[in-house]
């Protein structure tokens, strides 16, 4: 199957999942049930930023589905593939929003789920100054707990903000990695869809710090690409859904580095099977250079220069 077809398939799966969960939630709670993420002025941030519309009720949430459908056009070109990736992101937001309907608190320790605006405001300054040189989003499962710990720590020692999604959270716990916002390691959730909670961090950064107007999708994507130094590490077997979510990341300008066999896309989707090199590969792919002097002397300091882009011919 062509890469684009994998993406389309994943997006259709996301759409189907989204439809059924909305239906189920409506059946349980009624169309007028309130929809909101906790602690944000940006409603459902992905949908708000993309369309300029705030979603308040399940009825309104239901209306987002045709928009997702319209983003999935199965034509073989990059533009359509990236749109399908965005469709998956929107579908993920809808699914996650359903989890929060009513007074639900769907996420429990250690997972954080939705991240409130206050946190984003506090992260903004260090991101702009480069004190946080990058944002690593690790999805899936490393081949062993030790490998997982090694990768996470390699980012932590360089001061990056690390978000974890999926089994890697357990792997971090097993290896006694301390997690929490101040430690810059944030476990989001076990479902793939919980990755949207880091996507909305980038999106709200664009709205808050970039002054991007809600509804101006092109500007939004430009801001995330140019200003939010994030990337994704997709570890372990890749479902179509993960690949299509990856396309969403690429649409936002975030490269995806995976340890699985998949058709590479130069600079955007890179295969790195050597887990010792995943961090270096990722930092180079996102063009992240580590400001060595500003790092509080951490363990594993010697690795700090790995992110430098060194060309053989230079």
């Amino acid at each position: 199957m062509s890469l684009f077809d994998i993406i389309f398939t994943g997006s259709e799966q996301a759409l189907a999942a989204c439809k059924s969960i909305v239906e189920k939630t409506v059946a349980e709670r009624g169309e007028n049930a309130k929809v909101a993420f906790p602690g944000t002025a940006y409603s459902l941030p992905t949908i708000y930023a993309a369309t300029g519309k705030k979603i308040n009720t399940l009825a309104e949430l239901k209306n987002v589905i045709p928009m997702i459908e319209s983003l999935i056009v199965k034509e073989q070109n990059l533009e359509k593939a990236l749109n399908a990736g965005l469709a998956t992101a929107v579908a993920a937001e809808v699914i996650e929003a359903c989890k929060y309907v009513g007074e639900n608190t769907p996420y429990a320790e250690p997972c954080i789920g939705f991240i409130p605006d206050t946190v984003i405001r506090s992260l903004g300054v260090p991101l702009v100054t480069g004190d946080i040189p990058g944002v690593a989003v690790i999805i899936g499962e490393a081949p062993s707990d030790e490998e997982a710990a090694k990768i996470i720590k390699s980012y932590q020692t360089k001061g990056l903000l690390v978000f974890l999604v999926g089994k890697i959270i357990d792997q971090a716990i097993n290896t006694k990695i301390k997690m929490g916002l101040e430690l810059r390691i944030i476990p989001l959730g076990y479902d793939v869809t919980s990755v949207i909670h880091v996507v909305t961090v980038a999106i709200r950064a664009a709205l808050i710090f970039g002054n991007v107007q809600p509804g101006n999708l092109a500007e939004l994507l430009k801001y995330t690409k140019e200003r939010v130094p994030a990337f994704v590490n997709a570890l372990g077997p890749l479902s179509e859904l993960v690949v299509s979510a990856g396309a969403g990341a690429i649409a936002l300008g975030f490269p995806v580095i995976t340890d699985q066999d998949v058709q590479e896309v130069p600079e955007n989707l890179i295969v790195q099977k050597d887990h010792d090199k995943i961090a270096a590969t990722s930092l180079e792919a996102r063009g992240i250079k580590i400001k060595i002097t500003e790092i509080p002397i951490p363990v594993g300091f010697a690795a700090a220069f790995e992110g430098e882009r060194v060309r053989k011919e230079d």
Partner: protein
Amino acid sequence: MQDELSYVKDETAIPSLLKKAKDDKIETVWDRALAMQPQCGFGEMGVCCTNCSMGPCRIVKISPDGPKKGICGATEDTIASRNFARSVAAGSAAHSDHGRDIAEALHYAAEQKRPIKDEKKLRALAEEWGIQTEGRSVEDLASKVAEKALNEFGKPFGHLQFVERAPQKRKEIWESMDVTPRAIDRDIVEVLHSTHMGCDADYRNIITAAVRAALSDGWGGSMIGTELSDILFGTPVPHEVEANLGVLKKDCVNIVVHGHEPTLSEALVLAVNDPDLIEAAKQEGAQGINLVGMCCTGNEVAMRHGIPMAGNFFQQELAVVTGVVEAMVVDVQCIMPSLPQVAKCYHTKLITTSRKAKIPGAVHMEFDEKNSVECARKIVLEAVMNFKNRTDNVLVPEEKVTGRIGYSVESIIRALDGITNTFAHQSGTVKPLVDAVKSGVLRGVAAIVGCNNHRVPADQSHVLLAKELIKNDVLVVTTGCGAHACIKAGLMSEDAVKLCGKGLATCCELLKVPPVLHMGSCVDISRILQLLAIISKYMNVDIKDLPVAAAAPEWMSEKALSIGTYAVASGIYVVLGVTPQITGSENLTKYLTSDMENIYGGRFEIESDPIKAAHKILDHIEVKRKQLDI
């Protein structure tokens, strides 16, 4: 009279200059094309034969009682295929003689210990050809490589060295058809022999001979020309260049170098930078000397030195009409014999330099490769001394654009290195390009090559085709007058990215290249073959399996026919915008446009509408993608 405007609206004709030509009573190619209407149907269909003095013979198709055979008994199939094959042979001969001259130039350069610009490439080629490199001086190596190259033209046994560059499956196809090129001159001569009266009468067999002669061009003469030119004069690297007739300068001595072989133009590049000659120009009242290039030799010096690209085939007369050209210096191929008449109306000196191409009415100053710089100096001095003869009747057009060119295979691979990940990939391969294509970000690659021709709107066919392809995420590579057309239309500028589909635009931004890559002159189409061979080998498939295509939307010369034929025989789908003179034979037409695909994997397509041509190419590319399961 036909509607004159249908010729005049062509983009390549700068309106202000065309008007001036009219005012000055200059007859141009457009006027002559108009005067020629209607053109002879027998020739147009390829069913006129003059191969012996029993003829001329013609096959009459339109009425039942006209002759159906030549006096010797040759059928329409025989006559049309013989004509086609002879054209291919002529095209191959032109390119190959060009290649031979470069090989000779390398030989003399070695003998006279003149500098060899790309030693690395010289060594690599020597190794490829099994020449011992260790402990050899550059001169020694250059002379050995030149000798080996010169032997390619007439060696008695074996096949051409560059055949080895082709992927294995391709070589097997050639072997099975017995078309593996052997020695360049021999393969050309064989076409002339078998198309003599009373020889080969089987149209398929005649085309097979033509294929062999064409392959001798692409994988022989042209490839030798390109490779040895790079060795001698340097392998092109990306840089900015100006294009169109606006590059002429009112206050300078303008020299237009026109033709094909870089030996002459390279020597001119040296000569125009000679301080004595610049001083002489200033003495004559000029600000300096402005060298600009036209057609393929223009491509050569633009690719290597950033010399402005003054224009393409249909602009050669208009260049003189500006009234500011002190000398148009020409060597061989695509030089309109009308030029002396145009030059006569102004002060311009048309200077011929090759004993292979003299034109009545021109000044002949023979270029001697053994004495190249001295010859070039004399020519430049002639131009400088002509500055004072300029009249007030001048018009320097405003049309001028900038573009980025210089995409040799080497610089393409270097650009690709820029988007590899140091920790995940090797450098020096075509992997990023293959990945872009396999992932679907790029749908494929198409080559746009060839000339100008009054039968289709000149330059527009190149440009519309290129625009439609890049809009649909197909990377375009171009050479020859197609490259001139594309750069003039701004397709090699940074802004051109705006005309691309998202996939191609993304690639261009990452690679920092324009969506239309200028790969050089007509002989440099061998660079495209080389690139395709590298990609095929990397992907472990044959060239015919790749999602690629080629087009010659405005082709006119026999060289273009040879190019088209070697491309088809190399497995490439080739769209011709101008119908070749074959339609009098249905069998031949079917053979070229259909049967050949079963044999070689490539075929000719005829489509004069550039947008339709683009969509045929896109369809072809999608079929190939399906077959590759990507």
